[in-house]
């Protein structure tokens, strides 16, 4: 007696994946030769000029402030949009479609493109970075929040209906306690993401660590470049540790 564990279809999908990889490699001219050139990056290495680190404090604060304020703005707007675009909670089906469409547009266009558009329209500055990141982040959080609301247990809401609670009381007592852990999880994830985008957008002129990185790279000052990388590493590492701590607190 033979038992089939893997089926032809599953093998087919794996083979298809390999085939698509081959096709994409040919399209962009990827060849194994390039893997051998990766070690060239090591030749760039110069010992980081650690005396630069204290001077990076203002730039680090700029980057963190951009990420923090954009996440904060996005949370406020997404909170409202999340409620409007959740099927089970929206006050009206027309509001549902409007909110969903706006959130979808904000999400589909990447934050870096929002940033370049704003810089093109308004000029360089940290504020443009804040708005660019906030718009895209609203697109992400708006959707996450709506999904979290759609997944809540509807039973406690029936109890609130029976006691004659108003719409806003239902949200505060029936919805928020249920979605809070998920919300905090998404917010922490997006803050981490926004910090990285703030660094990248920095290179386009909104200031902060990214800007310093690009200037020194252009000037071939690799000791300074690696010092900035050290700063970026510790910043992101610290944020990751703090997020993990907050998450464990929320899950209790």
């Amino acid at each position: 007696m033979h038992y089939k564990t893997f089926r032809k279809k599953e093998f087919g999908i794996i083979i298809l994946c390999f085939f698509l990889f081959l096709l994409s490699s040919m399209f962009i001219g990827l060849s194994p030769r390039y893997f051998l050139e990766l070690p060239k990056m090591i030749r760039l290495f110069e010992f980081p000029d650690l005396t630069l680190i204290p001077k990076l404090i203002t730039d680090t604060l700029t980057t963190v402030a951009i990420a923090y304020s954009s996440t904060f703005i996005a949370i406020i707007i997404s909170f409202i949009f999340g409620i409007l675009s959740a099927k089970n909670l929206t006050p009206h089906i027309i509001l549902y479609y409007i909110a969903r469409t706006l959130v979808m547009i904000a999400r589909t266009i990447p934050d870096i493109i929002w940033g370049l558009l704003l810089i093109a329209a308004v000029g360089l500055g940290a504020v443009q970075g804040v708005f660019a990141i906030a718009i895209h982040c609203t697109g992400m959080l708006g959707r996450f929040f709506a999904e979290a609301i759609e997944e809540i247990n509807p039973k406690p809401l029936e109890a609130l209906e029976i006691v004659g609670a108003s719409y806003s009381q239902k949200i505060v007592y029936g919805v928020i306690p249920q979605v809070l852990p998920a919300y905090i999880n998404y917010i922490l994830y997006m803050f981490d993401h926004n910090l990285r985008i703030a660094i990248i957008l920095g290179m386009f002129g909104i200031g902060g660590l990214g800007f310093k990185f690009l200037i020194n790279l252009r000037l071939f000052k690799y000791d300074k470049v690696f010092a900035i990388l050290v700063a970026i590493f510790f910043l992101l590492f610290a944020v990751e540790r703090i997020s993990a701590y907050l998450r464990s607190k929320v899950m209790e």
Partner: protein
Amino acid sequence: MAVVKVENIRKSYSQHQVLDNISFEVEKGEIIAVIGPSGAGKTTLMRCIASLDKPDEGKISFNGNGEIKNGKKRKMGMVFQEFNLIPRLTVLMNVLIGRLEYTNKLASLLGIFSDKDVEIALESIKKVGLQHKINEKVSKISGGERQRVGIARALTQEPEVILADEPVSNLDPRTGEKILNDFVRICKEKDLIVIMNLHQIDYAKKFADRIIGLNKGKKIFEGTPSQLTEKAVRRIYM
């Protein structure tokens, strides 16, 4: 003088008749048990009385004043099979939810309740015997204690009617009987109307003043526990 009057209720879901011409009246202080096999329409009947569902035909009135609706202050509390509490909130907060219609709306959104509301909530918690657990999160207490919180929440509404949809079928028999006993005793003390769906016939006989038997959406039986003979039970569960 009937206080709750159910008249010719019909309800169907996609061609399936769930309630077929149900009528009965309940007077002040009466304990009614509704029994019947699964799918007899017990829960739908309860949801219609609670106005969580709308009957297709018929009328449910309360004190002679038309339907019991959302909007005007409710004199009807409900105890649920699955308790329907908010696990992350404390016992006190869950019970205070019973005051939401009476309290200042804006203050309640910030979690502020008047001393009077808190007093009423604490009184209900004491009645169900959970005064030592007021600040525990509901997720940390046992199933039986959760249903006690559910009962306290209903009492905090200061209702005249309490509906209970299989209040103890999610609990082990010993805990269930104890809680049902306390529940009925408290409601008797306060002279409340209780309409409850029960799965267990012996509980219905022990705790109810009057029993209504449903089968396939029809009222098959209505009478006192002593009138519920072996034969009547067989007809209900046919």
